[in-house]
């Protein structure tokens, strides 16, 4: 609960907090913790919820998982309920409108930034490092990923395929490309 309350800015902001709290309680070892983050990233759902559930389970079984998940969600729920009440009340004030005139474009920027950060792990071969990027780009850039990225864009723009279907298909494609 304490973790849910103090993590501004999404799942990754939570990781250091979770780590500190867990260490002070002795619930998990450092390497177990790294495993949990990896699993939280690889399973669907908010990373913060995933890792909280996992830590809770390891510390105290299914009930622990349940308590940890609830704990991480409740501060959000309460705070957002309060905020949304005011938000919709003041939505039409000119000052407020002007504030969002400034905020909306930066949010678009932040969404693009999220794409850039995912691209960094998706398009580059981690083990190769970035030093050869100019002399030998093919050794660093993962061609298969660029191919899947291109396909997903074509699917979205031209054929208007549902994003959920795109995620499923790209997962299958990843598996097929690996076997080939």
């Amino acid at each position: 609960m304490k973790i849910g309350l103090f993590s501004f800015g999404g799942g990754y902001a939570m990781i250091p907090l979770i780590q500190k709290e867990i260490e002070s309680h002795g619930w998990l070892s450092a390497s177990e913790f790294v495993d949990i983050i990896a699993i939280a990233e690889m399973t669907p759902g908010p990373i913060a919820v995933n890792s909280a559930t996992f830590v809770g389970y390891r510390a105290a079984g299914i009930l622990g998982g349940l308590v940890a998940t609830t704990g991480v969600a409740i501060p959000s729920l309460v705070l957002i309920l309060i905020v949304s009440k005011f938000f919709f009340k003041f939505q039409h004030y000119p000052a407020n409108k002007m504030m969002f005139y400034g905020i909306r474009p930066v949010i678009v920027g932040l969404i693009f930034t999220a794409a850039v950060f995912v691209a960094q792990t998706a398009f580059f071969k981690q083990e190769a490092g970035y030093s050869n990027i100019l002399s030998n780009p093919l050794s660093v850039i993962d061609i298969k990923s660029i191919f899947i990225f291109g396909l997903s864009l074509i699917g979205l723009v031209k054929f208007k395929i549902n994003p959920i279907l795109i995620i499923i298909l790209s997962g299958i494609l990843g598996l097929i490309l690996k076997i080939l």
Partner: protein
Amino acid sequence: MKSQLKLLIEIFITFFKIGSFTFGGGYAMIPLIEKEVVENKKWVTPEEVVDVFAVAQSMPGAIAINSSTFIGYKISGKKGAIVATLGVILPSFLIITLIAIFFSKFQNAPAVEAVFSGIRPAIVGLISFAAVKVSKTSIVDRTGLILAILSILLVVIFDIQPIFIILGGAAIGLAIYHLSPKSTSKILSNGGNKN
């Protein structure tokens, strides 16, 4: 009463679906919200989605939970908020509990890594496409375009925390409001960036 129950069930199912397919953190949710909540159900408008993420990112807590709660509240008040939050959390809880019980070496399985190597680049495509879509209603003039580009540069190159970027955007909007009534009335008469 009956129709409200139906709506709540619909909200729950929609967010359960979103929770089941959000890979890699809060922003990866945006393409799904855009499709399911904006386009299919028409519960919120494209520009409201951007506002939702502004608030979700500025408040403590996971962005995915914050935005689900917020959208749920917008659709159907407190009950909607609770149902949407439960919906988005439940898939995580179930999947993680199963993994924790059965496969503790889950992430080392080559098949899982292969599936993921396919999903990750597709997520890049999905998020960028969603960003382009919301930019159409959120960036209405040159000022907006400059702000968007500036925010990308500040985060990617200078590693500035998103919360400061949002505060900066708010400050610029308010500064225009206080310093230049002329451009304010021009912006607002064009519908701001819509509302």
